[in-house]
């Protein structure tokens, strides 16, 4: 029965969107971090998804084609803003601190998009569940 694939695929999407929401939460939580060098400054993280093109079996679990996987988590390449704050304990020898390059507005947008996608997949699962229940009831008629 192919309906079970829907549960698996939509489930993988739920997991992926949750990771995306977690990443956004982490970005927002670290948005006011400061650091003494450009390399150490907190960079906003972004989740990149990929589609499974063929069924894959890992252990006793089968992941169906079309499921989503997290390919990698990339860092925003925007240079972190630099400000002069010699009183800050993490300032470098010239008195500059590097803030995180997190843009709160785009994080909020990202979070809303992830939660909408999550809801969409929940709806898919609900509909598939109802269809399966109705199919089971055919013989009861």
């Amino acid at each position, binding site marked *: 029965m*192919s309906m079970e694939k829907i549960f698996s695929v939509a489930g993988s999407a739920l997991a992926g969107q949750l990771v995306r929401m977690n990443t956004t939460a982490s970005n927002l939580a670290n948005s006011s971090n400061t650091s003494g060098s450009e390399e150490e400054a907190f960079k906003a993280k972004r989740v990149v998804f990929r589609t499974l093109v063929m069924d894959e079996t890992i252990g006793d679990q089968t992941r169906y084609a079309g499921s989503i996987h997290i390919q990698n988590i990339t860092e925003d390449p925007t240079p972190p803003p630099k400000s002069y704050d010699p009183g800050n304990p993490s300032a470098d020898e010239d008195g500059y601190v590097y803030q995180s390059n997190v843009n709160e507005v785009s994080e909020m947008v990202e979070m809303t998009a992830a939660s909408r996608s999550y809801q969409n997949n929940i709806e898919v699962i609900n509909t598939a569940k109802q269809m399966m229940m109705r199919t089971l009831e055919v013989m009861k008629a």
Partner: protein
Amino acid sequence: MLDKLYGIHENALSLKARRMEVLSNNIANADTPGYKARDVDFQKVLSWQLGAGGLETTHSGHLASPHALDNGQVFTIPYNTSVDGNTVEMGLEQAKFGKAAMEYQATLDFLQGRVTGYKRALKGE
């Protein structure tokens, strides 16, 4: 005789379940860069399942029918393009999924009608 009990509805039901599966893949991959939205060409697959248009493979050296290779899947042509190459248009996919679910239910109702009919015939009421 038994395999013809449900007529076209048996094939139609599995095809409609598969279409829902393909559409749910699209919804799941709405945020995957480069993903191309797919759909099932109902007319094409149904005519193929009913034995029209498909090639029969009676020998191991025969090439499979093109329908058997793509399972009747077609790429959806998007109304608008997106920067990351993803062609899933969420509103459209949701509408399609809702319609597919409705069609699935309609086929179920037809099937249920058959089951009820046969049961009544067996009881001899």
